[in-house]
């Protein structure tokens, strides 16, 4: 019995090791990142999404760059513009390093966020930000792949619905691996610090 328990402990430990290659640290050591590490080979969603010009994109398009991705919709009254505003501040804080970061705003409301809306909406915050979308049918599947909470609340008219959604920002390292989840409250300075660490 005791052996079995030790075995289990060992297995759990090795499992943890396997999940965080290269980032495991002895207990008590200062963490490498300010955001929540999610480095896990089983959870690093890729995607095939269109931009406003109709070009299809996947993570590989930004190999060598940190990808900062979040979901939202243009009719969102405050969380989404705040997230985009913070992303723009992060770009400013990064200075030259900003060239090695791609920000992606993925709409959860492709019906109202037409390509034209998406293009103008994202560019207001930063000329390099890219708005991406998929079909309405595919959007819930996309959210599931990102383990993202997503729900449409029907309104009184077909156009007046609202969208509930997860507000974390996903950070991918330059190798295209999902590494960090950043909460909405996290300040731009913390994001910039973590992005610099990922770029190192």
């Amino acid at each position, binding site marked *: 019995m005791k052996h079995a328990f030790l075995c289990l402990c060992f297995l759990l430990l090795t499992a943890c090791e396997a999940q965080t290659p290269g980032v495991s640290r002895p207990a008590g050591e200062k963490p490498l990142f300010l955001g929540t590490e999610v480095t896990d080979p089983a959870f690093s969603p890729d995607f095939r999404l269109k931009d406003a010009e109709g070009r299809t994109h996947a993570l590989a398009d930004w190999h060598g760059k940190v990808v900062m991705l979040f979901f939202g919709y243009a009719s969102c*009254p405050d969380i989404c513009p705040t997230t985009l505003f913070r992303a723009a501040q992060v770009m400013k804080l990064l200075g030259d390093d900003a060239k090695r970061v791609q920000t992606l705003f993925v709409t959860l409301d492709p019906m*109202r966020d037409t390509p034209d809306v998406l293009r103008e909406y994202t560019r207001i915050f930063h000329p390099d930000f890219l708005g991406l979308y998929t079909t309405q049918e595919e959007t819930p599947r996309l959210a599931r792949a990102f383990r993202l909470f997503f729900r449409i609340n029907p*309104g009184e*008219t077909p156009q*007046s619905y609202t*969208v509930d959604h997860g507000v974390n920002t996903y950070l991918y390292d330059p190798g295209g691996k999902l590494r960090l989840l950043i909460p*909405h409250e996290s300040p731009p300075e913390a994001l910039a610090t973590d992005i610099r660490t990922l770029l190192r």
Partner: protein
Amino acid sequence: MMMQRHREPEARQEDADKPRPECAKAPKRDTRKHFALLAGPLVFLFAGLLACFFAPGSAQAQQLVVTEAWVRATVSGQTATGAFMKLTAQAPLALVAVRSAISPRAELHEMRHENDVMTMRRVERLPLKRSETTLLAPGGLHIMLMELAAPLRAGDVVELTLVVEDENARRTEYPLRATVRALDAPQP
């Protein structure tokens, strides 16, 4: 007297850049009443005149004070945005409806941010306690202006009407003006 729908003078707005309510816009009373009840409207008229002289000193005219009203700008094709302000009631009131010429569907909503999820719900009735300031601000309560026909540009002025109910279920309308702020402006 029966429940009477009437229009109060403009809600007092205390923004530095906004003019105080003008007396010319003072009460438009509904006088579709029997002749025998004329005394009532006359008293109201007199009160209205007094309000004109002492505006904004009249208690009637100041049941609701609205300050720092603003609306977030939109891009072409975007059909919804939020309106934000501070509401201070001078008596127990409830905000029951919002109207705006630019939006056929203006609703009061409450946004919640819990466990990394943003949710939004319609609020049918918002109680406003006496002498308390209620914030309609990003991250919480706000007015959703939906089905917008045209984009709102920074610097535009949007006219809104708040419909407020007092303890006697008497409804009063407060017209106000909100300035449009840039989409990428920092949160005030």
